[in-house]
């Protein structure tokens, strides 16, 4: 008994010494690396989408390290799992900034997760790159938005349908939460400004994970047979998309009759569909895997090699992550430091090539300039690009189509230095515009 206790003590102290050594070794190493935080859910509902982005960041870090890192230091990833739990995003962001002392964070998918982490990141003066299309109406000093604002996705998509498909009647179909509601509010105002009558717009919301679409599809069919060309603008989120498209296919709603344009359905989501009956339905993004550009082919090859799976797809938020990472690396090199304030100043106006053959520019409102592409679904689960804006579109943090935010601009350079500056009153209100 006594013997064993002694040996246990010995072992423990040995273990403690070893861990102390390794800890100090780790700390010594830490001083020589640049830490990159990855704040994406690896479990829970959002894991499906976000794990891909975590892998993208890790791949980019590997690539940068193979080139010798940044400022002569290696990059080191710090991956945390906020588990699709919104308050946990704030906690994990705090851990990344306080404990791990990361220099930059790539992360978040849903708006609510970003809003949760935002106060912590602003308080600790961190740096977040947010890579997903969102509803706009925000510009934080500490966040760079590399996904699309509504004017880089929703509005051009509607324009395309109006001009090329002569659509005169609109169904705005969304899941009941903040992104579809804000987007639809903006779209409704926009359509009305284009002379669409109120009776030609039908707005409808369904709960998360809605799986019985029979009634809605029957109603869309009916709404669409009034003799005017009709289209559906879908902000339906995640899991509800598959039953929606299955019902559309079975009920014989063809893209030739009532095209559906979606803002949340990309290559990754199409992998869960049988796309044969859905050919011709549309999606609007800033990137499609089918884009013909050498940079894109190289990126796809690199991704397939990294993930060791020939069948994996690439998608728009991955391109946004790619652009964000490249911009950050360039800004750090230019600033010669990873200090947040210096990097942020260097970020203004920085440009890197995107994957569709153009140049992405970071504007002073912390949103990107990027092209808008319209793609049609093909049998092979890919999109065929049928239209794209001639040049890049500047991301508008505050939409011009809602009276409340029409007068608000974001500009993080002198003299305004504000995320929500009211040009009428000349005042900079708090972060959240009310």
């Amino acid at each position, binding site marked *: 008994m006594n013997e064993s206790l002694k040996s246990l003590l010995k072992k423990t102290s040995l273990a403690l010494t070893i861990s102390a050594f390794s800890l100090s070794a780790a700390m010594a190493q830490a001083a020589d690396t640049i830490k990159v935080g990855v704040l994406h859910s690896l*479990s829970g*509902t959002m*894991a*499906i989408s976000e*794990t891909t982005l975590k892998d993208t960041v890790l791949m980019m870090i590997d690539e940068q390290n193979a080139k010798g890192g940044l400022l002569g230091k290696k990059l080191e990833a710090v991956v945390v799992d906020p588990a699709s739990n919104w308050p946990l995003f704030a906690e994990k962001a705090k851990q990344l900034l306080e404990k791990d002392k990361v220099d930059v964070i790539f992360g978040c998918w849903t708006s609510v997760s970003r809003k949760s982490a935002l106060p912590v990141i602003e308080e600790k003066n961190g740096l977040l790159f947010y890579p997903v299309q969102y509803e706009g109406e925000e510009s934080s000093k500490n966040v760079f938005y590399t996904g699309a604002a509504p004017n880089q996705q929703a509005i051009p998509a509607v324009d395309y349908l109006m001009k*090329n*498909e002569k659509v005169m009647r609109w169904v705005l179909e969304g899941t*009941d939460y903040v992104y579809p509601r804000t987007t639809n509010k903006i779209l409704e105002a926009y359509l009305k400004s284009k002379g669409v009558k109120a009776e030609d717009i039908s707005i*409808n*919301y*369904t*709960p998360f*994970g*809605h*799986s*019985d679409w*029979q*009634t*809605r599809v*029957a*109603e869309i*069919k*009916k709404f669409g*047979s*009034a*003799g005017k060309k009709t289209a559906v603008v879908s902000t339906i989120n995640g*899991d509800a*998309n*598959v*039953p929606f498209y*299955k*019902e559309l*296919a*079975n*009920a*014989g709603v063809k*893209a*030739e*009759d009532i*095209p559906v344009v979606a803002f949340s359905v990309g290559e990754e*989501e199409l*992998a*869960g*569909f*049988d796309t044969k*009956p859905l*050919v*011709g339905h*549309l999606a609007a993004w800033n990137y499609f895997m089918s884009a013909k550009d050498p940079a894109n082919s190289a990126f796809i090859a690199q991704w397939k090699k990294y993930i060791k*799976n020939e069948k994996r797809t690439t998608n728009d938020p991955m391109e946004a992550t790619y652009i964000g990472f490249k911009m950050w690396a360039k800004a750090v090199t230019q600033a010669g430091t990873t200090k947040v304030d210096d990097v942020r100043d260097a970020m203004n106006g920085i440009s890197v090539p995107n994957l569709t053959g153009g140049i992405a520019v970071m504007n002073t409102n912390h949103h990107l300039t990027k092209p808008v592409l319209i793609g*049609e679904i*093909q*049998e092979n*689960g890919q999109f*065929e690009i*049928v239209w794209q804006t001639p040049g890049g579109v500047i991301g508008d943090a505050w939409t011009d189509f809602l009276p409340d935010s029409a007068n608000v601009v974001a500009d993080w350079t002198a003299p305004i230095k504000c995320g929500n500056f009211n040009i009428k009153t000349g005042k900079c209100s708090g972060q959240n515009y009310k």
Partner: protein
Amino acid sequence: MNISLRLLSVLLCVCVATLCRADEFADLVVKLNGDSFSEKTEAVGGLHRLDDKRVLPVLKAMQDGNLFVVAEAGQIVIGKESGEGYEVQSVLDNSPLGVRTKSQLEKIKINNGLRRELRSLVAGLELSAKDPDIRRQSAINLIKNPDESLRESVESALGGEKNQAIKSLLHVALASIDINSTDTVKRKAAVAILADAVQPEAVAMLEKVAAKDPSGHYLEADTELASTAEAALIRIQTQLGIYKFIENCFFGISLGSVLLLAAIGLAITFGVMGVINMAHGEMIMLGAYTTFAIQQLFPQWLEMSIIIAIPAAFLVSGAVGVLIERTIIRHLYGRPLETLLATFGVSLVLQQAVRSFRANNVAVITPEWMSGMWQINGALSFTFNRMYIILFSLAVLALLAFLLRKTYMGLQMRAVTQNRAMANSMGIRSGWVDALTFGLGSGIAGIAGVALSQITNVGPNMGQQYIIDSFMVVVFGGVGNLMGTFFAALSLGVVNKFLEPFAGAVLGKIIVLVFIILFIQWRPRGLFALKGRFVED
């Protein structure tokens, strides 16, 4: 000499004409691969005007996405998928050109506008096809996009058509072209035909004729025509109201059958055994993934995959169920709270396990015989997958009722759940019966997963969508009663579908939930309460 000269010139003319024609076809085909969609549309229109047998196959291939350009040669070919590549043939003389890989061919892009154009042109050309289904579909497509230039082909097809149903569709197609003509006689005849049609497109056309300005006058100059249209509309609206009601009933029964399928396994594990199994949804998920696995393993039996998947899913989910019962639940009988927490843990483990395999949302293919719909008339149609699921859920219910009531195993199950001590003393191995009952409930959930894979997405979260609804149905119907589960599922489905058009999906769901809460206050044991001594335990 004179004659021979004439002959020569005539011959030359013919020669040039045929050459021209051949050239025109070839030229237009090349233009199909033009740079802009408007150029392609023009070429399609040009091809359609040619009287050439080769046109229809080209247009059809283009519509179906089977028209390709051979990368290096620039030759335009029609491709047919074969294995890894495409078997291609020349559009000019239909000569086979062997098999090309996907990378050697570039598909000729089309967009929705072009697809629409192609559809009505192909429909016009196929009105005289041999297959009645193709003729029917062509007629329907023509009603969707009435095209003045196709009037003649519709008329000639009408003359030769024998099938009554297609004939009446063609009449509607003709009327939808004529209603926009300037000839009053034609328009009058068109309104008369449209007045007997129930296609939504026909109704819309009548509405256009009968439209009024704000002061109540017809916008249409021919007021007599407008009032005929209006009278017809009133009649059609009542008819459509009846169809709408039937359709709502079908939607409700269909939703009810989905609820029944999801809940019926739970009616056994929770209803009969009293185990609160939060991992029930994951048993459904496992069944759905089994379907996917079967389709991946046996791609050659795609049409039959659903049938094969039913026993397979039963075995997979049932085996997992028995495993969970033997390792976890067995130790927790009589401790509902612990059971709830433990099975909730199991459900999280199973979900994350699926994610770790990177089997996120997977595409389960719907076999041909389950796709599409049964078009009863222009206004009413039932989708096949829903009809099969209704029948399937009833079959599962009947089989289960038979198993519980009429077999020795069912007798043992009921004996153990009603009075364990007594059953033990009669020589029943209650431990085995527990495991088998739980396995049965889980296996049935697996079968439900096969059916659900046909209408919803198959992903790690799919089980969670059904767990709440399943408990709701079982509690509402009365715990321990299969018939109660049946009636609860159907009534909740129908009520939900009649509420949705008025209240919207979100509010409709809330109303149903509030109703159930109130109902349970009033009758805590649900619709069909079990009676007897053992109920009090």
